[in-house]
């Protein structure tokens, strides 16, 4: 592992994190990471999901009080044990999810917590507007601060958020995936602002997994993988290929996998599937017994596509065929009756009813079939749930436990059990192992393979590269609402997918 050879010099060292380690029950999220950021540079931090980027930044934000290692800011050793302390030391965080209050004015949002008062009771409107205006000028945003935040564009809201953070005069600014919701022009304008802030002597830490952006904006880049720092280098002296290799790391042998059966008939086909603004002209098909990976970075339109196939969201154009028969998706109920199942991405909000028992959740989609003459057969429900609890090793193995009391992995298994209970012909999984422990992950993967083995057509939507590579028979890569490539068999490698998802290595003819 190379050392931080590219260090400019120690003058202007704004942040130094030395031998940082942070463990969670069962996993070490960040291990022995050393990281430096200088005033007047943009330092990108990249890595796959779970590489430790967000944990490292959370430590910086003061989210944990039990990390190991030393942090010093501007040459002074500090303990970042609470968000307030971190803010005081000059760390400004701009998260992916903006923390703005929509109905309030821009001015109130920018100066939240620091509203200029008169006699300690009333807000001084004139001073508020004036101060907000000068704060907004720092990010190059010329806009009336009296406008409500919900009326401005995503890009402007992003800048308002940055202005809000800058208002506290940080010396280190952390931007977490700031471009994920922006259009091309808006990204250009954001980058202009970042360049100007850098010139003003701010140390900017830029977290992203869009590699092309990093080459545009960052001076140096640090690659994390499995909680360790792999390397830090000047962006001018590296290439996309090198970065991808560092991010992916391990050799491909364990990813190679073979299933001993041929996929069957075409189960689902979509043609020219379009929902304006989300995905365009998508052509895909999946056979029974086959696992089709759908890889893309977050915000690429994968979830939107899955929702439209399931009839949750509308489709503007295109057709859908089930076993060769044209079907118009109108509602989730209809598609479930057609033999489709959709495991949603967010188990807490849209997947499970947390206040109900495991049993009530597992049979949620199967109630009508558990009823005879309209009356519910609770012993059948219990039997089905109990067998799924055993099959998926849900702990504790009792069907009356409230789902809210289960661990994340067991909640996810309960969600999967709900869709196994409907015995689907086509199973769409949206990030089936996000935020679960390794044991649950392995079990979920084995179950997905079993399902395919038994003839279910599986569409696996995931941004977890190793997951896609180890499970998918074929993989379509989706980027900015378009399928920009499809690879199959031994060609499914992490490098290949990551290059495609970042808009590089596209074969001729594939349009963007």
């Amino acid at each position, binding site marked *: 592992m190379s050392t931080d050879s590219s260090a400019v010099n120690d003058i202007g060292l704004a942040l130094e994190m030395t031998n940082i380690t942070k463990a969670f029950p069962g996993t070490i999220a960040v291990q022995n990471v050393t990281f430096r950021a200088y005033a007047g540079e943009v330092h990108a931090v990249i890595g796959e999901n779970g590489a430790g980027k967000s944990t490292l930044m959370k430590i910086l934000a003061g989210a944990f009080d039990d990390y190991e290692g030393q942090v010093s800011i501007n040459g002074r050793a500090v303990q970042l044990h609470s968000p307030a302390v971190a803010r005081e030391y000059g760390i400004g965080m701009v998260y992916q999810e903006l923390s703005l209050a929509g109905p309030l004015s821009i001015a109130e949002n920018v100066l939240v917590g620091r509203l200029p008062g008169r006699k300690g009771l009333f807000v001084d409107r004139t001073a508020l507007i004036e101060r907000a205006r000068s704060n907004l000028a720092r990010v190059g945003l010329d806009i009336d601060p009296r406008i409500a935040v919900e009326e401005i564009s995503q890009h402007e809201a992003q800048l308002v958020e940055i202005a809000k953070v800058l208002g506290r005069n940080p010396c280190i600014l952390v931007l977490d995936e700031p471009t994920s919701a922006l259009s091309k022009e808006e990204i250009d304008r954001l980058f202009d602002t970042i360049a100007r802030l850098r010139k003003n002597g701010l140390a900017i830490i830029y977290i992203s997994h869009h590699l092309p952006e990093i080459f545009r904006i960052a001076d140096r880049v640090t690659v994390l993988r499995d909680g360790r720092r792999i390397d830090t280098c000047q962006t001018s002296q590296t290439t996309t290929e090198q970065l991808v290799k560092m991010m992916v790391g391990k050799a491909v042998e364990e990813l190679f996998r073979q299933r001993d059966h041929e996929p069957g008939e075409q189960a689902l086909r979509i043609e020219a599937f379009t929902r304006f603004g989300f995905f365009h002209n998508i052509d895909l098909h999946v056979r029974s017994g086959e696992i089709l990976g759908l890889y893309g970075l977050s915000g690429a339109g994968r979830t939107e596509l899955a929702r439209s196939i399931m009839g*949750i969201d509308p489709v503007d154009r295109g057709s859908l065929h089930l076993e060769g028969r044209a079907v118009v998706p109108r*509602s*989730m*109920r209809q*598609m*479930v*009756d057609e033999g489709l199942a*959709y495991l*949603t991405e967010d188990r807490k*909000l*849209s*997947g*499970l*009813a*947390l*206040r*109900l028992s495991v049993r*009530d*959740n597992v*049979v*949620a*989609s199967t*109630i*009508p079939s*558990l*009823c005879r003459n*309209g*009356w*519910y057969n*609770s012993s059948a429900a219990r039997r089905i749930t109990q067998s799924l609890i055993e099959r998926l090793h849900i702990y*504790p193995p*009792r069907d009356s*436990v*409230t789902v*809210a*009391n289960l661990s994340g992995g067991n909640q996810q298994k309960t969600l999967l059990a*709900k869709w196994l209970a409907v015995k689907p012909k086509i199973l769409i999984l949206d990030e089936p192992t996000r935020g679960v422990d390794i044991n649950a992950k392995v079990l979920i993967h084995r179950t997905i393979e079993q399902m395919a083995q038994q003839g279910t057509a599986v569409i696996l939507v995931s941004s977890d590269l190793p997951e896609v590579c180890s499970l998918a028979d074929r993989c379509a890569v989706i980027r900015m609402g378009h399928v920009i490539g499809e690879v199959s068999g031994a060609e499914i490698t992490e490098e290949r997918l990551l290059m495609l998802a970042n808009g590089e290595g596209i074969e001729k003819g594939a349009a963007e």
Partner: protein
Amino acid sequence: MSEDRTLRQNRFSVLISVLGIYFLAAILLIVGVMVSERFLSAANMLSVVGGVTILGLVAVGAAFVTYSGHFADLSIPTTMAFSGVMAVEALQFGIVAAIFTGLLVGLLIGLINGFVIGKFRANPIVWTLAMAFVTRGLMRWIWSNRQIYPEVEGAATGAGQHFVNLYRYHLLGVIPMTVVVLAAFAIGLHFVMKQSSFGRQLQITGASFEAARLSGINVSRNVGLAFLICAMTAAVAGIFLTSLSRVGAYYMGEGYDFAAVTAVVIGGVTLAGGRGSIVGVIGGVLVIGLMRNVMTLMGIDTFAQTIVTGAVFILAVGIQSNSLRRLGRDDA
């Protein structure tokens, strides 16, 4: 270890939420005995039960709205009044036509509420409040603020007397007809809530609307049906109330919305939806009846009783959301 503890707590809190209300009823019985020796007399007990049967009918229907996660139906009072007035108006065509017309009103209001709230996701509180306002206005306009009397409207056919007797009829001479009707509704709706396909799906809808929708449950239909059931029992209650008071008027049923929600909530159906049972709701209704009776025996006047009922409601909601929060279900 700690998991076992939460499980035990969990089971305990479930037990409390079902039986707790009957425990409270038992305490009120003891207080009642201490307050007055007349309390346990058959006559007084019958008056306790008789005094809350109409409320009971309203509450077992209203429970479905709360269970579905849509808080309350504020158009209950005007639904009661409207079906009562319409029934009286239809008495000139006979008693059967009158009852049928009254029920039809409930059906119509329920369908409108259910459709607008289920299909178009209107805010249930705002919509039913508007519905109450409109139907009350309609009644005052059509009957120009007058009351109408069953014994007058139904004099020609003799149905008027039958209508007034509806509330006063006793089965086998002892059991009030209203109690029988309430028992039938309570048992029937208990099975609908716990054992029917609709009821099971309503539970998930109430506990998490989004999760239910993305499980392929027809949430619009379920929510709509909940409001329909609520309006239907309100219509039945309205007919009985009109029969009891021998007068049909726009102000009939006032206060039944809040009293019903109180009974539902202290009966263990949480405002967060998806929890509780009809058994609990009946307990809640009994507690309200006992509370009123004990307070009357203690000489507390009617208006002060309203204050106590309100306080009990606030207390019940507070305890429920607190216990849900402690169980880690902070969405209460």
